């Protein structure tokens, strides 16, 4: 993907590096718009793609020219005209990240759709027209961040939960014990009192929600630090993603799952041993079957040190792991990691949810994985081709249900825990995923939203206005680690209470009793085949 471009970045406007040390911290007086002389367009091709998506409506009578918005906008969308003493916007640069809206002390900014789009067309959506024009202009692959945003139906939204009435009592979690503790890893075949038999390494989660793999580089140093602090506080885990583990974060070894991906960035014995568990990444829900790409501009000294690559070089992960072309090869790597860690840690394998997931998961479990992660197509990414993000992969709900079913039928469900990932939005999704057969879930987009993300999908540009997916030194402090940790802890505490309430109303007092308990689920508005695939019954039956 050598030639990549994005829908929103405007080639005419240079990168707004506000780091030139000007006295007020503002861009130099020659604002990026000055070469346009206030005209909409100067270059011959501009009229093909210069339709602004968003319109920044500023009530000038309420604007106090404090220029907070100008300093906060990393997308070069806001500038100040000192001669007229007015703040203006370059609408076509706006990505609707809402940073200016949040920071404006007089709330004089409102962002709207620029217009209703092109002429209504049921087939040619506005986003398609935009994409085509942009692509024709640049000849590149359209890159984007975050997860699949097309309106595919969500199975989570068509599954409802059962509750106890009369014939079975519900439980009040405020008055009675409620167990959310989950052990992830291989369980013994059987248990006989007095002779525990072979015991396998497991990791203990106080809440069945883990932070999904997000690499340092894709996310900021501070955000990863916040994830680590929150994971430690809540007795759960964060995942390094494929970007290695920064030396500063090695102290969180009891709360981290370290990932070994196709690029092998930052992998050495100390990395593997600075962990609670190791994970082999085969695929990612947002971009199944393709590798990763951290642009060289984002590789600063710290990232270079963590990933063990030179500063400024592109970090390209190959699409496959080139030493894994079969289940047998996967077994070699699983056992290589187990040997390297002396069988003290569970080894996880993460795959994207694809058509044949159940059989693949069965193979992975037989290859010796202790945890299998299934990442659905709503899962996010720091950067992926839009066409792949939006059209490849399947929903995690069906993949999870099928995988769980298959492992049960083959009698090997105890050999591995399943983590569901990709588009878990709230605690109800967690409960539904666990009832469909997961042991725990991974959350990433929810965690990012908790710390400020507004889903503007510009993660790949490294300019995150909220300081989440950037490591530019001037943007980094926007998300202090302790603030992030506090918000993430708050999110998990809230979910913890909600999950306990939902378990209680179903008459359960332990998350163990919910796992794979599909009788607690009913489908609404699903076809017979969909119900069968999910292994649940129709509501009312």
């Amino acid at each position, binding site marked *: 993907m050598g030639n990549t471009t994005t829908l929103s970045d405007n080639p005419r406007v240079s990168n707004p590096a506000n780091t030139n040390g*000007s006295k007020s911290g503002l861009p130099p007086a020659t604002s990026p718009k000055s070469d346009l002389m206030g005209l909409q367009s100067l270059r011959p091709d501009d009229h093909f793609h210069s339709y602004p998506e968003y319109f920044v409506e500023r009530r000038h009578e309420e604007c106090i*020219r*404090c220029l*907070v918005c100008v300093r906060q906008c990393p997308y070069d969308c806001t500038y100040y005209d000192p001669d007229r003493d007015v703040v203006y916007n370059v609408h076509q640069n706006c990505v609707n990240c809402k940073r200016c809206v949040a*920071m404006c002390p*007089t709330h004089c900014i409102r962002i709207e759709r620029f217009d209703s789009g092109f002429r209504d067309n049921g087939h040619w959506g506005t986003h398609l027209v935009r994409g085509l024009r942009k692509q024709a202009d640049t000849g590149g692959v359209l890159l984007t961040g975050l997860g699949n945003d097309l309106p595919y139906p969500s199975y989570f939204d068509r599954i409802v939960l059962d509750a106890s009435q009369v014939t079975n009592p519900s439980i009040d979690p405020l008055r009675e014990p409620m167990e959310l503790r989950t052990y992830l890893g291989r369980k013994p075949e059987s248990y006989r009192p007095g002779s525990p038999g072979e015991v396998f390494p497991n990791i203990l989660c106080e809440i069945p929600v883990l932070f999904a793999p997000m690499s340092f580089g894709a996310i900021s140093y501070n955000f990863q630090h916040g994830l680590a602090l929150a994971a430690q506080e809540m007795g759960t885990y964060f995942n390094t993603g494929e970007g290695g583990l920064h030396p500063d974060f090695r102290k969180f070894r009891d709360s981290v799952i370290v990932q070994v991906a196709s690029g092998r960035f930052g992998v050495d014995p100390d990395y593997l041993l600075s962990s609670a568990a190791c994970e082999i990444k085969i695929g990612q829900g947002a971009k199944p079957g393709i590798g990763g790409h951290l642009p060289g501009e984002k590789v600063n000294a710290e990232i270079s040190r963590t990933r063990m690559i030179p500063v400024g070089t592109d970090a390209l992960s190959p699409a496959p792991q080139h030493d894994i072309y079969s289940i047998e090869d996967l077994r070699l790597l699983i056992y290589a990691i187990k040997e390297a860690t002396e069988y003290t840690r569970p080894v996880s394998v993460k795959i994207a949810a694809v058509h044949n997931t159940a059989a693949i998961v069965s193979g992975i479990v037989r290859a010796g994985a202790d945890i299998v992660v299934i990442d659905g197509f709503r899962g996010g990414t720091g950067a992926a081709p839009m066409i792949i993000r939006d059209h490849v992969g399947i929903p995690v709900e069906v993949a999870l249900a099928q995988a769980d079913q298959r492992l049960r039928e083959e009698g090997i469900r105890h050999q591995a825990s399943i983590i569901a990932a990709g588009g878990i939005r709230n605690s109800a999704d967690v409960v539904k995923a666990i009832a469909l057969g997961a042991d725990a879930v991974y959350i990433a987009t929810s965690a990012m939203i908790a710390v400020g993300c507004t889903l503007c999908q510009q993660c790949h540009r490294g300019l995150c206005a909220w*300081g989440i997916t950037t490591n530019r*030194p*001037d943007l980094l*402090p926007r998300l202090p680690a302790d603030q992030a940790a506090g918000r993430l802890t708050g999110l998990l505490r809230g979910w913890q209470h909600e999950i306990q309430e939902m378990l209680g109303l179903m008459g359960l007092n332990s998350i163990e009793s919910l796992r794979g308990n599909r009788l607690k689920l009913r489908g609404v508005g699903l076809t017979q085949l969909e119900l069968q695939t999910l292994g649940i019954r129709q509501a009312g039956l």
Partner: protein
Amino acid sequence: MKRVYPVEERCINCHLCEVACIVSHSRTKTALGAYQVEKLSFNWVRPHALDPAVALAEGTPLPLNRCRVDVQGSVFISTSCRHCQEPDCVKACKNGSLYLDEVGRVLLREDHCVGCWMCLMACRYGAIERNPYVKNVPGQESNGINHHCDLCRDRSHPACVSICPTQALVYEERGSS
């Protein structure tokens, strides 16, 4: 005594502390009132406007913020009066308009100051600014009066600390300075 301390690695260069400072020291106590009614412009962009003489001659208002975000590359820090335990400015003040109050704040008797700028010369932190709009010497050309952080005398918590979105300013007890 509690003082305002900046936390350099948390500052995001938004300058909201300056806005809050101006608003909290305004008569109307609202952002729109301060800007539109009292004409306390927050326009820091024009470097010449930072020179009080030029500003007065032009009729452009000076920003009267008592804290100031210093920018060096991508390092930002909001600075204001340190309220030293043994303040050089108070020693230097020749007519006693600067004084240490009972809790240890360095405050100004606004009707005493004649704008001699000994305080400005003495301050080792460069935390003292000039307010050219107040003139205490009738019939004389005056430079205005001393202008520095008063830790928001009429508030329980300094306004800059309250508004800071990343807690890059903290108001706490840290022993002697």
